[in-house]
């Protein structure tokens, strides 16, 4: 049986940096192939070469046994290679149908054929078992998970031989991810080959048939997923042993520092209740759209608070603005690093210190020296890899950017940290550093609310967990009393989880 895709000896350099060196990569027909590696290992570069976005310096690519040199993205697409990017690339104001057909509108002499187009779009959605998504609605009214489905449907309309999915689940909840996996398996049955890139190794293990590991631009291992063991894969990825993915640092719980009673926003959350104690890591689980992010935003004063009461450090403080919350010693890490979390065209130092220039300045004048020293200290403490504090933040990798965003809360010396999806889309090494940091902060008596859609990390890191369901948050319980199964049951609204 010939492979659907065979890449061998692929090399690519940017200036003096060798991004890919002698990479071999092989995918069979109707196979889901996990491409695994830390950020910067070269996964995206390899896939960009395959999809025609970048030319390779050397190497050979065969598609169904025929030599294939992708000249540009259009050529690759015409050859049956479809790529779904990490960031959603939909036109937000166009309808679902228009987005699915974009660039491939069936028609004649420039006049689109409405009926055939609708049929095609509907068929693509049906194939993914998402007929429920209405065709005429603008995509910006859909949830992120639904938008993801639209994006995949768009790729399907082109009847691809190969589908490349770059971190498709990073913004999905477990339930939506399950749907996606089912859709992937159906595509596999049709003979479509899928390259699946994800930082969630457990997911790769469940969904993929085979895997290839990249490290520092080289392929360091490939094999059958069912025979692989997770620790071995991690060892190959990072080139070193990570002893514990979820390091536990002992810490003690103190008095309550934060209390929400019936906190409600305009639409979400409907009623959020919790008590957070000093030195506690409290996890909030739930589906996307259940109102977890909104609860943090309403509390932090970014969205309007409609009802409920809040006390901070045992003092009534219901109505807050971000300025006031920061003054109270509360910091929020946004789930959306690019659009809200960071000022992408500013320097690392500015992003790190913006909430607390006071200690770096006198009478409104900022001392560049103090700021630089301060940023350098945090860079070292958080292991941020960058050339200098004056480097533009957009030049850093996702993991390093995230560390800077977390570093801002540390520089602010926040006593209560609200972390919304802090590990989304970052590599395993950075994730472990963030887990460890959370433990250290808790042991220093900081209180942390940790919102995550990734259950293993919630169960691994948190002291207590609470599940948000349809805008209602209540019933905090120790992490030990939860299982993945019981959390999912609670998230989708089944009253009492089954025994297993």
């Amino acid at each position, binding site marked *: 049986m010939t492979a659907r895709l065979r890449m061998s000896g692929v090399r690519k350099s940017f200036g003096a940096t060798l991004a890919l060196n002698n990479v071999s990569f092989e995918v069979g027909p109707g196979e889901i192939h996990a491409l695994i590696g830390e950020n910067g290992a070269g996964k995206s570069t390899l896939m960009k070469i395959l999809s025609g976005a970048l030319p390779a310096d050397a190497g050979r690519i065969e598609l169904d046994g025929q030599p294939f040199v992708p000249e540009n993205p259009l050529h690759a697409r015409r050859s049956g290679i479809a790529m779904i990017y990490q960031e959603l690339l939909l036109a937000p104001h166009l309808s679902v149908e228009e987005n699915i057909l974009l660039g491939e509108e069936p028609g004649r002499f420039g006049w689109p054929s409405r009926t055939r187009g609708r049929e095609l779009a509907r068929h693509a959605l049906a194939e993914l078992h998402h007929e429920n998504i209405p065709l005429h609605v603008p995509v910006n009214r859909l949830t992120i998970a639904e938008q993801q489905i639209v994006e995949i449907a768009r790729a399907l309309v082109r009847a691809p031989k190969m589908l490349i999915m770059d971190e498709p689940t990073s913004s999905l909840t477990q339930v939506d991810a399950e749907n996606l996996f089912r859709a992937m398996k159906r595509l596999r049955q049709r003979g479509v080959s899928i390259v699946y890139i994800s930082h969630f190794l457990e997911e790769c293990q469940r969904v993929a048939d085979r895997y290839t590991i990249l490290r520092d631009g080289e392929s360091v291992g490939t094999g059958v997923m069912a025979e692989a063991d997770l620790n071995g894969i991690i060892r190959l990825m990072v080139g070193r042993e990570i002893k514990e993915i979820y390091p536990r640092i002992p810490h003690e719980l103190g008095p309550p520092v934060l209390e929400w009673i019936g906190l409600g926003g305009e639409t979400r959350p409907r009623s959020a209740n919790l008590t957070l104690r000093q030195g506690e890591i409290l996890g909030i689980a739930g589906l996307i759209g259940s109102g977890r992010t909104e609860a943090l935003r309403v509390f932090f004063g970014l969205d309007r608070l409609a009802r409920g009461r809040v006390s901070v450090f045992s003092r009534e403080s219901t109505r807050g603005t*971000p300025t006031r919350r920061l003054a109270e010693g509360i910091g929020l890490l946004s789930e959306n690093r690019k659009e809200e*979390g*960071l*000022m992408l065209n*500013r320097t690392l130092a*500015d992003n790190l210190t*913006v909430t607390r220039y006071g200690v770096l300045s006198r009478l409104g004048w900022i001392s560049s020296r103090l700021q630089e020293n301060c940023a350098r200290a945090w860079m070292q403490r958080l292991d941020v890899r960058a050339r200098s504090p004056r480097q533009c933040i957009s030049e850093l990798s996702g993991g390093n950017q995230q560390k800077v965003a977390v570093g801002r809360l540390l520089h602010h010396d926040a006593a209560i940290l609200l972390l919304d999806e802090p590990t989304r889309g970052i590599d395993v090494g950075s994730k472990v550093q963030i887990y460890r940091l959370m433990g250290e902060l808790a042991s220093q008596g900081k209180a942390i609310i940790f919102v995550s859609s990734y259950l293993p990390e919630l169960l691994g890191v948190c002291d207590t967990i609470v599940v948000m369901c349809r805008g209602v948050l209540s019933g905090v319980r120790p992490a030990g009393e939860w299982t993945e199964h019981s959390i999912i049951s609670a998230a989708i609204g089944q009253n009492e989880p089954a025994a297993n």
Partner: protein
Amino acid sequence: MNDTPRQFNLFALLNAVGPFLGLMLVIGLFSLDSEVRSYFLTGANFKTIFIQTVIVAIGALGMTMIIVSGGIDLSVGSVVALTGVVGAVSMVQGCPPAAAIALTILVGGLVGLINGAVIAGLGMMPFIVTLGMMGVARGVAKWLARSQTVDAPNSPIDHLMAVVEPLQLFPLPIGVWIAVCLAVAMAVVLKKTIFGRYVFAIGSNEATARLCGIRVRTMKVAIYSLAGLLFGLAGLMQMSRLAQGDPTVAIGLELDIIAAVVIGGASLNGGTGSIMGSMIGALIMAVLRSGSMQMGWPNYMQEIIIGIVIIAAVGVDRLRHGRAPS
């Protein structure tokens, strides 16, 4: 991590001196012709260029701040006309020059305050609000001046922009020195103070600025008001130069000012820009005007050339940034 430090420094250097190189290039081009050079490369000519730059330069100080914060102000030309008229009318009515100066500048600040309050308070697009204000301020100017020019009585204000004899570079009129001092002050404010960093922060990402506890609305009101004071000062310079308040003067001035800021490397998306760049941008435009005149090119040639320079400046900027591997 894909580019080496050496390349990085080269880019940084280009970014810093790019507009300056542009200015040198323009001056160099006009100096090629030896006949023109004998007029063009003289102290007297540069004195004229500096005086002609003052109004655009002072306007560009405020505009840089606004554009860096992600906004825009289209009402500058009208505000310059309005404040000039206010100054002239108040002196005709018997105000002492000092009071007239204060009034002129404060009216500019008031217009800015209204702009800022509407933009921040109602969350409206700066483009729309200031487009409206462009009409309102121009209309009020004509109303106050009864649609005529108002001759200002002789006063020390006339010296601000007067071409002082002898015909050499120095002494420069006091208006030029005011512009230079303000430029230095604004550059320091934008670069070195918390206020300045907040301006950049808001322009770079308003959502982040809010998340980081910056009072975005208050800041916007402050930014437009401060810029308004500067536009009022530009109006004073305009009045000094004409020795009258003219309600129909400075039509399209806002576009010259925006062009100067953009040539100087600012992005209309906000978050980037510098006072130094904007000042050089303003000088480039004045040098182009002066040079074209000395070459004997007709007016329409100047307009075409300046238009091309604006597009080219931003295009070069784009290429420079596009070079960095994504």
